[in-house]
């Protein structure tokens, strides 16, 4: 009896420190596992929700990446908007929660001259300098998006007379111009087609709202989504202002196997061809 009791005690004594160490490592591993799992889900969600680049922001908004880190989601711009254009994204909208956006087909931006939504922003996510010229508010400088015409479904491109978007545009004949051309189908009529000047278009969406087709055939999209970039290689030689590009342009010399030698030598060098 006595000896077995002693043995049991010994076992307990030898096992105890191991147990403690085991529980210690187990807790560490559990904590690390939980943190990894939580962090993964968390950042995956954030990544997913921030990848939506089709969101139209209020006037003066910073570029989307900066906007997302700067907007504190207080909703003051939404409250300032007299037309209820702006909304705060709520869970389920598939947009970064709490950030302001608008859907022009529902309520477009009416381009208030005093731009009430921008000066109220406490965080600078809506930058007042982006919508002012000479320290005076100028809504025409806004770059909320750019209108794009679907020329297959726009009835003006069919030859039916419609200038709804043209007339709705607050910058009529500047942001949307009419392009007259011959209607080749009938041979005697004109096509009066709307054409967007992306330099002037503010992306207010009044055209999208006014469009008469079932689903709007002129829609506003974020500028970064739609506009291309010509880069430094192509310069409008006839445009002095475009030549500014040359000052910042960097020549990039690529070297390949062929360009190591001069052009002539490279062409004359038959290399391994004769051996074959």
């Amino acid at each position, binding site marked *: 009896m006595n000896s077995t009791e002693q043995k049991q005690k010994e076992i307990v004594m030898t096992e105890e420190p191991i147990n403690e160490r085991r529980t210690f490592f187990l807790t560490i591993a559990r904590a690390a596992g939980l943190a990894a799992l939580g*962090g993964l889900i*968390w950042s995956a969600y*954030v990544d997913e929700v921030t990848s939506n680049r089709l969101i139209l922001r209020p006037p003066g908004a910073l570029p989307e990446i900066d906007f997302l880190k700067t907007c504190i989601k*207080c909703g003051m711009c939404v*409250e300032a908007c007299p037309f209820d254009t702006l909304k705060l994204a709520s869970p389920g909208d598939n947009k970064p*929660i709490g950030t302001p956006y608008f859907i022009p087909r529902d309520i477009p931006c009416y381009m208030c001259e005093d731009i009430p939504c921008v000066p109220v922003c*406490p*965080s600078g996510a809506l930058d007042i300098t982006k919508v002012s010229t000479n320290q005076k508010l100028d809504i025409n400088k806004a770059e909320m998006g750019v209108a794009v015409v679907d020329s297959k479904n726009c009835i003006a491109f069919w030859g039916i007379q419609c200038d709804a978007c043209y007339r709705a545009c607050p910058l009529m004949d500047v942001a949307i111009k009419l392009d007259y051309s011959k209607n080749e189908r009938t041979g005697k009529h004109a096509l009066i087609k709307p054409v967007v000047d992306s330099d002037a278009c503010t992306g207010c969406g009044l055209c999208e709202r006014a469009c008469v087709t079932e689903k709007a055939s002129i829609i506003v999209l974020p500028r970064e989504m739609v506009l291309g970039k010509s880069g430094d290689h192509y310069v409008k030689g006839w445009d002095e202002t475009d030549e500014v590009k040359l000052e910042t342009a960097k020549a990039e010399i690529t070297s390949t196997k062929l360009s190591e030698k001069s052009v002539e030598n490279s062409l004359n060098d038959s290399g391994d061809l004769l051996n074959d």
Partner: protein
Amino acid sequence: MIKIMIKNKYLILRRLTQISIIVLYFGANAWGWNILVGNLSSSLIAGIIPMSDPFAVLQMFTAGAIITVDLFIGALVVLFFYGIVGGRAFCSWVCPINIVTDASAYVRNKFGFNKIQKKQPASRNIRYWVLIMSLAISFIMGITAFEFISPISMVHRGIIFGLGFGFSAVMIIFLFDLFVLKNGWCGHVCPLGGFYSLVGKYSLIRINHEEEKCTLCMKCKDVCPENQVLHMIGKSSEQVLSGECTNCARCIEVCDDDALNFSLRDLIARKKEK
């Protein structure tokens, strides 16, 4: 009835502050009131005094955003109030989720779940890890990480601007607190609570315990959502100095012996002790 109301005066006051803050924000959006405009993330009192969520501002900073003067002053105003005066009072006097978790704790107590599940399987320090993690994710991904998932913002913003699926966040927290973990969200997970625990560590308003009056009924420990802060109950007369105390005053209300009361932090006496 009046007796019950006097007995629970702090609870009633807390609900009144929580609800009236939301109503003021709501009125600002719906009817253009100018008393309290914005939401709990950032707001303006009477169009003059800015307030902003210091934790959100901290996340913005780690994400690499430029902090404007307005936001910085707003965060300082809030930090000053909770840091010097109120302690972690945000959690019990302002935060709308507190109503949800209190309801959950009440139901839990009524159904006797606490007696079945006596030991809590999770550490209360999780919140500090979540806090660190939200700053880390903010830094790496360049966004305000907690603001993207915070049920607190979802709910208060939702009530003011439209809830969407935010209601499910409320339900999840209610059920989590009810079935999974007692005081789970507010007492274990919420990084904002952790943040204000750190901020309010040295604030002036403190609960005071008088040991000679205590009859060891332990009602205070049962009702306290952060009952580890009441470690001195029945042992010694001292102030509750842990930053994790939310100053919700439930312990004062349930105490039938007047052994717990609000007090100002005893700066001089503490120095003498040392």
